[in-house]
């Protein structure tokens, strides 16, 4: 009798283990897709009467916004995951490096005199230079933080660098506070972010969406190529797997770790510029929330796994948009972290699996 009773339970567990996560991730979009098709949604009013549509356009719009918003989280999440992968440290200051990136970017394009009326070539050229400078500044800042606050604690208990990371997070927040004050600061909408670029089956793609994806995708490919194909990238992977063995093989572990921080910081700098253009406001506290979301994305995707961080960022972006649009923004943090718990319960090593020493 017990054997018979256990068998269906084991089958259910097995099914949940295999499909549970996919079902959970698809639950929201599928539910709202069906609801839109069956009950319809109001897309506006004509002559005082609501126009009710029965299609998937609104869902498509939510998902496009989610992907573009998630691209920013992905850029930041990659920085978290790179650092965790190589030294197993949650770099709490990373979100604040991203905030400094936004401030630097806004300062640079303001000093270039870029405005919404600047011509296309001037604007693209100016923003490219801004992107490069912002990436370099944030990369250097991250290297400096590693050099001063983490490297001296390499052999210390794990709690020590965690505390210095928190300390640096506060220092950078205070720098931001002194720089721009305590309130969100509006920045010029240089790219006219709400302008329609094109439509796919009624789903409008705005300039902000194109910008976020156009910056993120090349950087993700470049980083993946760098880690997978270059000598320095191989050194990073070797150091992540076993620093001692890497050192014995002649790899300069300290330089490799510095390089990792440089790359993470550069991605945060790029995210900083995209965020400023996307949101058209910057705030000294923006790094806290963004850092929390991006770290969640990194954990959801599988900490240490670059592709996982990107996937996690995009999934969280989509969950946020669906929740903001359908449930109300007040529920979004609870929904996002509810999903994180679900992913952790169903797949403790994240969606694509951890790539850390502990994970093997």
């Amino acid at each position, binding site marked *: 009798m017990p054997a018979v009773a256990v068998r269906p339970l084991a089958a259910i567990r097995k099914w949940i283990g295999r499909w549970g996560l996919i079902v959970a991730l698809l639950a929201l979009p599928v539910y709202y897709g069906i609801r839109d098709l069956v009950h319809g949604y109001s897309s506006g009013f004509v002559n005082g009467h609501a126009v009710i549509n029965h299609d998937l356009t609104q869902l498509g719009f939510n998902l496009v916004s989610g992907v573009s918003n998630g691209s920013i989280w992905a850029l930041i999440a990659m920085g978290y995951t790179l650092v965790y992968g190589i030294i197993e440290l949650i770099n709490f200051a990373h979100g604040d490096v991203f905030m400094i990136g936004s401030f630097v970017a806004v300062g640079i394009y303001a000093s270039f005199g870029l405005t919404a009326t600047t011509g296309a070539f001037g604007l693209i050229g100016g923003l490219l230079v801004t992107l490069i400078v912002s990436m370099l500044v944030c990369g250097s800042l991250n290297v400096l933080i590693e050099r001063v606050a983490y490297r001296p604690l390499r052999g210390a208990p794990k709690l020590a660098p965690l505390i210095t990371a928190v300390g640096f997070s506060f220092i950078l927040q205070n720098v931001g506070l*002194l720089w721009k*004050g*305590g309130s969100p600061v509006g920045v010029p909408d240089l790219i006219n972010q*709400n302008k329609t670029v094109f439509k796919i089956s009624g789903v409008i793609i705005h300039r902000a969406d194109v910008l976020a994806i156009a910056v993120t995708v090349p950087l993700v490919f470049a980083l993946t190529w760098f880690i997978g194909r270059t000598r320095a990238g191989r050194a990073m992977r070797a150091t992540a797997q076993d620093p001692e063995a890497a050192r014995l093989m002649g790899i300069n572990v300290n330089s490799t770790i510095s390089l990792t921080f440089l790359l993470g910081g550069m991605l945060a700098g790029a995210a900083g510029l995209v965020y400023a253009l996307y*949101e058209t*406001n910057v*705030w000294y506290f923006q790094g806290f*929330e963004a850092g929390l979301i991006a770290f969640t994305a990194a954990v959801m995707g599988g900490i240490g796994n670059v592709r996982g961080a990107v996937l996690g960022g995009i999934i969280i972006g989509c969950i946020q948009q669906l929740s903001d649009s359908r449930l109300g*923004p007040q529920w979004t943090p609870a929904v996002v972290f509810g999903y994180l718990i679900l992913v952790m319960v169903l797949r403790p090593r994240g969606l694509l699996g951890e790539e850390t020493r502990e994970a093997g």
Partner: protein
Amino acid sequence: MRTLGKALTACVLVGTVIGIVACGSSSKSSSSASSGSSGSSSSSSGNTVDIYSSLPLQGASTAQTVPMVNGIKLALQQAGNKAGQWTVKYTSLDDSTAAAGKWDPGQTAADARKAASDTKAVYYVGEFNSGASEVSIPILNEAGLPQVSPANTYVGLTTNEPGSAPGEPQKYYPTGTRTYLRIVPRDSIQAASDLLAMKQAGCTKVAVANDKEAYGQGLAALIELEKANYGVNVVSNTGIDPTAPNFRSYADTVKGQGADCFFFAGIVSNGAVQITKDVHAALPTAKVFGGDGVCTDSYTSAKKGGVTASLYPLIQCTVATQKLTAYPGGKDFLAAYSKAYHTSSPDPYAIYGYEVMKLGLDTVAKLGAQGNSKSAVLKALFATTNRQSVLGTYGFDKNGDTTLKSYGLYKVDSSGEPVFFKTITPTKVL
């Protein structure tokens, strides 16, 4: 060499941090000096009375509060730092923090405690934000110190009228005696004025967003409660997260509701600029309305971090201030203010700062030898009737509310500055 490199890096970093902190602290001390004690103590401390103001002097509200402090100082200067036989020592306190960028409960309580513990204090000007007054009124009430706000409009601070929360206003007055007054008409009048303005602008469906603070939530609730009186259809009243980086989803929802007007009930620091930009992007022709919390250039002017210029023709907002030159003594005030602060168009709140200080000085002066008595000053303030002032003729009712009943409707000019459009005196008020 390696040790030297480490030391150099550490020195550079520590130097940078210290430099930044030093810059920050120097600017902080200079700002507190400039807004600090403006009156001079009497050589004989026995003839001195102390007056405090507590206003947010950091963040977006400074566009309103700095002119207000200037108005306070101007009144004091014109009186020669005297109120009758008493020499006045004025201290400007800041109820905001740099980190919050707006009023802070802890800082507000600290300000109130400072004034409450001063035995020579007879008059307290504040707060600017209704939520802050919810914190300071009970502290000052325990101390029996008269408090006059030049800006609060939330109904629950003085009455239990519709729009107030259960237990209000008694919970703010632990001694059972009223110690709080205000010289601006409360939100039941402002909400009616806003509804009248929206009706006249042709709004058929209004989406309301509030910042969930006492003022914003209260004003939004009153808009809903009074909408039937003016035939305005409110399609939604949403409490927003003021720290959200954007409000695009909210804007899409509002678009789906078919709104042709948008009303923001809250203060500039609480996401006002971003939500207005996002709603404008979704509904480019929708008219935008706001209360006195946003009727300032830090919201209306793109150059000062406010909304985009394409919104200027669409914005209307209300402030209790009317056309300054139309007030009795308004022209003189403007001339004196312009001479002292080199601006020909002060923020509408400057005159409220000026009047709140004049009210305090006049009240203390009239009391003669009793001018240093908190209870005498309090009694005299509540007894004020038919006061001829730069705001017009007014007095206070038993709740401490002004008898003034009008709001000024402002539009935005091409430079992004709010400019007086007309006076609204609603006839149907809850």
